[in-house]
């Protein structure tokens, strides 16, 4: 990443987009160590169920991961013990329709559309949703303070999702 770590300018849409694509590329290409390093220590990765939920902590989600859970999720994808992740699904995610909902020198709130196509054992499936990122400037560049994946069909029956959305 070449995004400057310190600047007195607000985070731009271009910086935020570049970061979100970078994260998507890490996940699609299973570069998990680098992916884990992109989060702040207290960051949360959340996949909610009910649209419009704001109190994620007290709600049932599909995923509500702190650093420890993200590490475990990665470990599960790599250790070969999970039959639903052996082989792990191949994914290609497409992010677009980016919009900065808020920005200042230290952080921004980015919203975008995400379409993931998954391929595994002869089946192709698609999960579509909005992603909202809270990105903060750390000493080495932007970092994820919170990522929320709002699937458009979150209240319907999903298939097993043996990878990270």
């Amino acid at each position, binding site marked *: 990443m070449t995004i400057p770590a310190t600047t007195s300018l607000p985070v731009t849409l271009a910086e935020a987009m570049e970061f979100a694509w970078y994260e998507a590329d890490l996940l699609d290409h299973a570069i998990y160590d680098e992916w884990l390093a992109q989060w702040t220590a207290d960051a949360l990765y959340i*996949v909610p*169920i*009910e649209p419009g939920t704001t109190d994620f*902590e*007290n*709600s*049932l*989600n*599909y*995923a*509500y991961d702190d650093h420890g*859970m993200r590490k*475990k999720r990665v*470990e*599960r994808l790599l*250790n070969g*013990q*999970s*039959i*639903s*992740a052996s082989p792990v699904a191949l994914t290609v995610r497409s992010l677009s329709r980016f919009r900065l909902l808020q920005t200042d020198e230290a952080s921004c709130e980015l919203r975008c559309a995400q379409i993931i196509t998954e391929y595994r054992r002869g089946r192709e499936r698609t999960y579509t949703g909005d992603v909202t990122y809270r990105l903060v400037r750390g000493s080495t560049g932007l970092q994820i303070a919170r990522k929320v994946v709002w699937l458009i069909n979150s*209240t*319907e*029956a*999903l*298939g*097993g*999702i*043996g990878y990270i*959305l």
Partner: protein
Amino acid sequence: MTSLAELSTTPDDLIRKDRVRTPLYTDPAIFDAEMTKIFRNTWVWVAHVSEIPNNGDFKMAQVGLEPVIVVRDRKGKVHVHLNRCRHRGATLCEVRKGKTSSLVCPYHGWGYSLDGKLRGVPYENGYDEKTLDRNELSLKSLRVEEYNGLIFATFRDDIEPLADFLGPAKKWIDLFMKQGGGYPVKTLGEHKFRFPGNWKIQLENTTDAYHFPLVHKSFLTAVDKETEQQLDMLNNGGFVEDLGNGHSVMVMIPELIDLDDNLEAPIPEKFADLAKELAAEGYSDLEVRRMVRAVGGSGFNINLFPNVACSMAFFRVLQPVSVNETEIRHIAIGMDGGPAAANRARIRLHEFFQGPMGFGSPDDAEVWDRVQHGAQGGDEMWIMLNRGFPKEESLPDGRHRSDVSAETGMRAAYDQWKRMMTV
């Protein structure tokens, strides 16, 4: 109506005491017959009381393939109506859950009160008394009965009361509900997922401890040592017991049968912070111990034929969709009025294992998918249900009991299946 005899040469060709044949998973005619002979002829779970706590609350559900509305009327009585207008048959409701004062068909505006009576018909002068007798056009309602918060419905007015149908399972349901930790049990949301396989593959799984250490190896790797030891369920002295009428209980962690017992036992390390938090909120030592023990859930699964399991710490509901497609709901439960910290802990535990992104359910879904895929390989091979069969202990009332990894619960379910399908 297709009888079992028409589906095969004899019932014994499809289903024996310790094995079943593959068409049970793959034959659309068998599936059609099941929807009629089983799901229209027994008690089917539709809701937990906490899903519709107030008058006017409703939720959509299904009894077999038939869409129903579970609704609490103005007087607090629970009804289960077919979700179908008496005029042209359109569904009245396509909202999963909510609150309403009436049920109105969006097509021509026929309106029903919550108890199912037809109240309003727009432009009524197009009908005369002979063609529109309101008293005969109430919503079709099913018989409804409740046991310890579990609401069941049936199309049959002449079958046994729910309490008799549940029989020995009632004792286990009462034990299961102790995970309210002194509060009533309340649903906290649900995970839903589908797998491309027959509904009976899921029915079998809830009473299958044999698969746990293998299929859930990656989950067991992710939990702490203490939990891993507790979940070493094949070596903990557990058992499976046939509870009659197709029901069974599988006890995986015997020390967690009665959550009111052993309250003096040390608090597990993983709940130490929770215990501190609850103590700081002012709960007594006994209350804290009781709640913490409840947060971990019960040590058993109750399989209630045909569509629901009270499964350790949640309700697991199966919904047949077609012969090779099934929807599963994992309904999280917690303490109604209990401390938020305790409910949060239960939610986090639920998220850890259950649902499409849990560390357990996707692996279950994968092996069920493989059972269905393998079943495409022809119907000449039997599916074995004989584990623990020779060593099964007979109980005085004709029921059976065996070690925790035995397929006793599956045999109980298929006994009931055969009884109902042979009629």
